[in-house]
């Protein structure tokens, strides 16, 4: 009996001593953590994708709490809504950032880009790009082994077997940048989603001279600067035999698309063109005919009228 009592009493004593030690330790070594970090973390999407540039959502939350200004911090997965929530927790303000989406800047499908050699090494884009230029004449184009698809954590990409190119599923893409970093050829780019998800971009990265680019791929940008001349908003720049459309300046007027001789400029999610523009073959000479007087004489607005009336006349 006494043994039992002694056991109970001594265990209780040990318990009390341990509790006191733990209590003192927890008071003395207490880490003061901003309670807002937990709140911000709750507001974040918990994708832990690293798209913000921080290792995980917790680290991003800590960074937002520490930061004086949320301008440089952005969660691409949550987008502006999440950032607004975060800002309200922290009592700060954020500007609405345009939502972005990954875009593949290569259109070298099998039909456009004949194979010139056979590759039978490891199925990894980075291995292949370190070994040689690619199994077609174009050394800038997609290698088609899907390293970007493997990198995507959001199920937003798949390989199209008929073209051999990856495809971005618009609804799933959160612009986390994982595919952009995975591509050894730098073919993926994050671009503004645009109103009604409409986008125009040059689907090529070939920096070779026009003739070489055209020989290796039918739909390559040959750097002819026709689109550059057509664009009235300074959105297009030509560098290294390659056109690039700045998505912040582009107003989606679509005028550069039909002038491209190799169809390297792509438009996404636009309604079909109106009648006079629909078939390209007759449209081309008209543009050439009126091009010279436009550039020399008329201001912008009149040009538009002039063009359309001309078009109608010739249609008739």
């Amino acid at each position, binding site marked *: 009996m006494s043994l039992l009592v002694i056991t109970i009493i001594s265990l209780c004593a040990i318990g009390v001593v341990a509790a006191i030690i733990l209590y003192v330790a927890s008071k003395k070594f207490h880490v003061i953590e901003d309670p807002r970090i937990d709140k911000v973390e709750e507001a974040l999407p918990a994708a832990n994708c690293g798209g913000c540039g921080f290792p995980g959502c917790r680290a991003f939350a800590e960074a937002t709490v520490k930061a004086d200004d949320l301008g440089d911090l952005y969660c691409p997965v949550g987008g502006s809504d999440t950032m607004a929530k975060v800002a309200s927790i922290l009592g700060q303000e954020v500007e609405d950032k345009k939502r972005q989406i990954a875009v593949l800047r290569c259109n070298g499908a099998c039909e456009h880009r004949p194979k*010139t*050699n056979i590759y*039978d*090494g*490891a199925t*990894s884009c*980075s*291995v292949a790009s*370190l*070994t*040689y*230029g*690619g*199994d077609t004449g174009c*050394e800038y184009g997609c290698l088609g082994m899907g390293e970007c698809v493997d990198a995507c954590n959001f199920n937003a990409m798949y390989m199209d077997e008929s073209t051999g190119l990856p495809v971005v599923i618009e609804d799933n893409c959160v612009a986390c940048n994982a595919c952009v970093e995975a591509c050894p050829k730098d073919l993926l780019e994050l671009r503004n989603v645009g109103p009604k998800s409409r986008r125009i971009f040059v689907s090529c990265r070939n920096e*070779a*001279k026009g003739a*070489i680019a055209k020989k290796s791929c039918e739909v390559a940008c040959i750097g002819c600067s026709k689109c550059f001349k057509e664009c009235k908003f300074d959105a297009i720049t030509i560098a290294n035999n390659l056109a690039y459309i700045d998505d912040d300046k582009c107003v989606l007027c679509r005028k550069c698309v039909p002038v491209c001789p190799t169809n390297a400029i792509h438009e996404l999610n636009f309604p079909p063109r109106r009648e006079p523009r629909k078939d390209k073959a007759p449209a081309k000479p008209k543009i050439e005919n009126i091009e010279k007087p436009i550039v020399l004489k008329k201001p912008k607005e009149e040009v538009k009228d002039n063009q359309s009336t001309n078009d109608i006349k010739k249609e008739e």
Partner: protein
Amino acid sequence: MLKTFSLGGIHPPENKLSARKGLKDLPLPKMVTIPVSQHIGAPAKILVKRGEEVKVGQLIAESAGFISANIYASVSGKVKKIDQVVDASGYRKESIVISVEGDEWLDTIDRSDILNKTIELSPQEIIDKVAEAGIVGLGGATFPAHVKLMVPPGKKAEVLIVNGVECEPYLTSDHQLMLERGEQVIVGVQIVLKALGIDKAIIGIENNKEDAIKHLRMITKNHPNIKICPLKVQYPQGGEKQLIKATIDKEVPSGALPIEVGAVVQNVATIFAIYEAVQKNKPLISRIVTVTGKSFSNPSNWRCRIGIPISHLIEQAGGLPEDTEKVISGGPMMGKALTNLDAPITKGTSGVLLIRSLEARRKEMQNCIRCCKCVRVCPMGLEPYLLMQLTERNYHDRLEKEDVMDCIECGSCSYTCPSYRPLLDYIRIGKKDVGQIMRSRKK
């Protein structure tokens, strides 16, 4: 018991089909393409313009930095264009295209075959001459040769090791050079010894070239300071660190250069080029190339001018066999498969290997069975299977800890893997990434 290196190594079938086939001069084609980046380091700066007439031995692109090399016209004629041309790497590189007209040499070059034994230049003059002649390591690494001859302050060179190993299967260009130009090579060794200010040289030759060993021994009878060292046949004995271990039994520490153990290593072909530059005033405009293959009609060794298209060499030597599926620039272990047969012969092209369709394809990759054969054959004592896994998972810190930068890319691991895993391909990516991280850290 013959000497060799202690760690790892393999012995693939030697297949030296073109051994003892005499050197022939390759007839000139109509056009040569000379890339400005044929060496490790900065690409050379182009000095000529389109339409300009050039003569053989004329400087056409000048060294653009400490680690860089001059480039000379290997033919006479007119500069047709300066353009981006696909070279052996499979990428387009800036190149000078010259259309060949006649064969006019600069008068300053001594074209006679007379052996000139007296070394008149001072050590510094020799190094300047080597730098001026655009000589790079002709074993394949193409590291500018003069940089190796300049011993950094605080270090002391003790021995010159001449690399006549030629451990790559199929290749025989160095072998043939030693047989036919042995005297010149020995004079070249003396030139380099004088430049380094030392008195001891060892020429390492693998035992499968007995005639070359005998020949050089006979020539060096009166030179007790030059030792010929026969070595057991073992790949990759031609690697700098492996050769140092095999000949003088010293180990170069991880990340250090051979000069750390007092050794300077030069390839025999480089030594011969140094002889020609110093004694004959001839810049590096040609090299010896082996063209070989199992179904090739005439495996042989050719003296080729730099810039000649590989397709021209194959044509002149016997024509492309029908069953060829892969053409490799270099040897079968470290060479690169070509995507374009018109790629030019550069300073680093030691051979052209035509592989039959029977042997060309890689076998399908299987899972790693943890047999550790790759660990056993790695001459640097690394664990290739682990490095591949770490690369696949992007574990860069761990890769650095596992000394991925020590890999010499000999390919022994991929060769020996029973699961046909492309170990070296992945390790190269790991090396590239870790190298970038280390460099950015230094800045």
